[in-house]
């Protein structure tokens, strides 16, 4: 009969002991988990998580296929796939056995764990167990030998007291985690091997690994009673260690097994591109995240979901250029505070300790928070759905509330408050660019138009960008598009004001703009500024303004496809395209500009970091209004990007689709020393040239 005895060689008291240990282990496990849940519930900011069924299904799919984990590192993805399914299958195996022994058999009198079922079960578990070991080996090679940048714990900024540099502890924890899983797999396989060596049932060839090793033992004469004694000892070692391991889950890296799937399920799919508004009667103390318990439960959970994979650290443009910011370190530091104030570490009294209402501003340095370009590279790549950008934004709101900001930023906000734009130009000058055109640009406040073109500050006031705005106007006119602008009725759309954390000013701007736009008669809103595009599309509905918003690359594509724009000649240029953060990562518009370039007959050569992996120019998150925070000798993100483009060799044009990119990259071309090697063109300029 193909089966095996579950508690072979155990006396009754030992079985009782075993079950008692199970109870203890599970109790500790639940205690730990309960403490974590209590910690999350302390979060004072309420977020609504809707569509739970949809979310669960979606998360199940993502986790099952490892879609997020496999990104940008297929090898690690494979490793995790093997470990994940290996662990699941082995765990399920034990569960099936427990079900059989503790329920099906005694209660239902039903015994299925024998015969073909048993053989299939054995084979399955062995294969997946082997897979688990291979996966662990892959991870060990990655961490130990390959050592990519993202797995190294180098920090761009030292932690603030009482936080300490945890690199050594983290590294130890990582290896212990791998080692402990390996140990479980090892003792598990040995268990099989010893059993086979002791009894040598021939059906056990269905446990290939155990069969091989077991026969190896037999070959060296280690069989019979000796092997059985070894099996008995190993059974206890494996069993107790497994129970210990289970009870330790809430207290170690293993906790990501629980929190990561939840993180994936509850991730705000609009994180970053749609930030939460502030309550009208919010008091100063309620604004933003100044204290650890101000975080939403979701964000507190995020802190525990982090597996220290370092993908955010590797993707961050600030980290790459010596800014005092690493998204990974931010999350881990916050985790330390949360744990030390409200979590398991607090419960166990292990330092560093923090008071329950611990202040995080200060522990996280303001320059760390101000370094963020809000480019979403971190959120985009995180395999467990951590929302770094909204967390940073909330902390910025608290800083702004306290007035703790760069003098230049303060000046800019005050300028925006008084003149409605970040340049301090009088309102009347908004439409100035239109006066140089050979035709009149409609005032959409006075006449209806098909498109309400919300121009934006940089496109309206900055001389280099004004040329592009004029180019676009000419294109639209030539294509017979009916458009109008708001002239001096336009205020800055406020995307970056919100990202900087001045929520009150943002709400004021949004309300004003919504009121102005609502008075107009139009079909769709057009904008050539992706920042404006983002906020008008995703956030203005919070203020009562829901419209169909289009970025000019999308409209240009439509016009080209419908033949309303006919390029007279194909531009044979070799170009590379830079995806603006707020168009690409924020809103998923990657193809429209590329299709436009294709329609113009340009040869597109992709930079290594493209689409969702594009490197931010460094202007976002209000950074263009703040003083430089990067390391002195480090290149700027925009300079790194130009280097990347130039390395593609013989590129005629660096193509952008955002006014701030125009400003940043025109500068970068000069300061990176590549002037003359590459030139910048905005999408509209190329379209105009081809007509």
């Amino acid at each position: 009969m193909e089966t095996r005895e579950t508690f072979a060689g155990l006396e009754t008291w030992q079985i009782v002991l075993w079950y008692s240990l199970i109870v203890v282990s599970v109790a500790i496990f639940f205690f730990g988990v309960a403490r974590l849940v209590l910690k999350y519930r302390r979060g004072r900011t309420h977020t609504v998580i809707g569509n739970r069924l949809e979310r669960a299904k979606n998360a199940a799919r993502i986790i099952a296929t490892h879609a997020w984990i496999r990104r940008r590192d297929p090898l690690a993805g494979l490793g995790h796939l093997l470990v994940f399914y290996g662990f699941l299958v082995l765990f399920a195996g034990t569960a099936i056995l427990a079900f059989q022994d503790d329920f099906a058999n005694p209660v239902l009198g039903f015994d299925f764990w024998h015969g073909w079922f048993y053989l299939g079960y054995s084979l399955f578990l062995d294969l997946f167990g082997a897979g688990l070991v291979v996966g662990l080996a892959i991870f060990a090679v990655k961490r130990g030998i390959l050592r990519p940048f993202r797995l190294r714990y180098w920090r761009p900024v030292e932690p603030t007291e009482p936080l300490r540099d945890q690199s050594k502890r983290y590294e130890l924890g990582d290896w212990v985690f791998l080692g402990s899983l390996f140990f479980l797999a090892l003792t598990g396989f040995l268990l099989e091997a010893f059993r086979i060596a002791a009894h040598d049932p021939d059906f056990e060839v269905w446990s290939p690994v155990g069969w091989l090793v077991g026969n190896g033992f037999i070959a060296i004469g280690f069989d019979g009673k000796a092997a059985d004694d070894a099996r008995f000892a190993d059974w206890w070692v494996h069993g107790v260690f497994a129970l210990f391991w289970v009870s330790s889950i809430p207290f170690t890296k293993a906790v990501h097994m629980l929190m990561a799937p939840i993180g994936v399920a509850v991730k705000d799919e609009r994180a970053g591109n749609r930030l939460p508004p502030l309550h009208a009667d919010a008091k100063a103390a309620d604004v933003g995240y100044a204290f650890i318990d101000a975080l939403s439960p979701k964000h507190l959970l995020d802190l525990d979901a982090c597996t220290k994979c370092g993908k955010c650290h590797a993707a961050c443009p600030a980290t790459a250029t010596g800014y005092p910011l690493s998204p990974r370190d931010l999350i881990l530091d916050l985790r330390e505070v949360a744990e030390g104030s409200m979590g398991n570490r607090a419960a166990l009294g292990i330092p560093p300790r923090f008071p329950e209402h611990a202040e995080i501003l200060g522990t996280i340095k303001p320059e760390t928070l101000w370094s963020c370009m809000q480019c979403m590279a971190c959120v985009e790549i995180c395999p467990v759905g951590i929302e770094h950008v909204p967390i940073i934004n909330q902390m910025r709101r608290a800083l702004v509330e306290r007035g703790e900001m760069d003098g230049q930023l303060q000046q800019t906000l005050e300028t925006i408050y008084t003149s409605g734009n970040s340049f301090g130009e009088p309102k009347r000058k908004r439409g100035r660019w239109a006066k140089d055109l050979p035709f009149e640009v409609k005032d959409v406040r006075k006449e209806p138009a098909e498109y309400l073109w919300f121009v934006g500050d940089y496109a309206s006031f900055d001389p280099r960008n004004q040329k592009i705005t004029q180019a676009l106007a000419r294109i639209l006119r030539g294509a017979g598009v009916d458009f109008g602008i708001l002239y001096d009725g336009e205020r800055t759309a406020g995307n970056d004001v919100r990202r900087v954390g001045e929520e009150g000013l943002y709400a004021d701007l949004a309300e004003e703009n919504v009121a102005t736009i609502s008075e107009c008669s139009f079909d769709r809103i057009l904008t050539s500024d992706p920042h404006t595009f983002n906020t008008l599309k995703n956030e203005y509905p919070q203020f009562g303004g829901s419209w169909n918003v289009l970025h000019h690359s999308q409209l240009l594509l439509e016009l080209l496809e419908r033949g309303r724009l006919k390029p007279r000649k194909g531009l044979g240029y070799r170009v590379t395209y830079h995806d603006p953060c707020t168009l690409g990562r924020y809103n998923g518009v990657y193809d429209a500009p590329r299709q436009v370039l294709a329609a113009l007959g340009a040869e597109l050569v992709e930079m290594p970091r493209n689409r969702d992996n594009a490197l931010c120019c460094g202007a976002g998150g209000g950074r263009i209004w703040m003083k430089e925070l990067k390391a002195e000798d480090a290149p700027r993100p925009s300079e790194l990007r130009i280097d990347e483009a130039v390395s593609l060799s013989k590129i005629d044009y660096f193509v952008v689709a955002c006014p701030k990119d125009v400003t940043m990259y025109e500068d970068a071309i000069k300061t990176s020393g590549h002037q003359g090697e590459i030139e910048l063109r905005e999408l509209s300029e190329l379209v105009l040239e081809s007509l």
Partner: protein
Amino acid sequence: MCVKQVAVLGDEVEFTADERDVDPDYLDYALNEWDTYATEEALRLCEAAADGEVVVVSVGPEDAEEAMRRCLAMGADRGIRVDSDAWLDPIQVARALAEVVRAENPDLVFAGVQSADAVQAATGTALAELLDLPRVAVVTKIELGDGNATVNRELEGGVLDVVEVDTPALLTIQTGINEPRYATLRAIKQAEEKEIDVRQPGDLGEPAYQVKKMFVPPKGEGAEMLNGSAADVAQKIKEIVEEHTG
């Protein structure tokens, strides 16, 4: 603490029919920059003393209250507005403020050195005279003592004059004395709950001056381009520099 909502003119301008003032359509309004420093200084002194009240006073029409709200949002306790829509000279403004300020019986009175629109730099000192208060103009540092204060007066060229002034006193505050705190828009909106008391002005007397005619100063039409080689350009630049220095 006396503040003013000043008018800000952009690059374009048109005048009223009588050519004595700028067409209001071309004006934006904001709190006078000097007053943000004065407010910040007042708040700091009260915070350091852990006691005290900062009252902001202004002469102007109803929308001048917006500028006052900024001060209230920064932390001032309450405001008083003397209602007036007329064009007033600094001495008339001082007269409008005098009665209100005197009734408050303040320990210190602050004003900005000058307003960004009229730049007369006179209201503060004139007010001090009407209140019969000791005064120092263009102050960049204040240290309170017993019955007096030691202040720095910033002279031209950066020289500082250390002055001991009896208190209560009126001080006109210069920019750069501190870093004014930022008032979030949320704080400004919530400052609407703080009270602003409105009073009517008394007799403001005869104006100290009257505008006869206002006009745009003549300005050259774009840059005169210097042509030729680098050497030519350098030579011309030298000539221009010599012409305009001395």
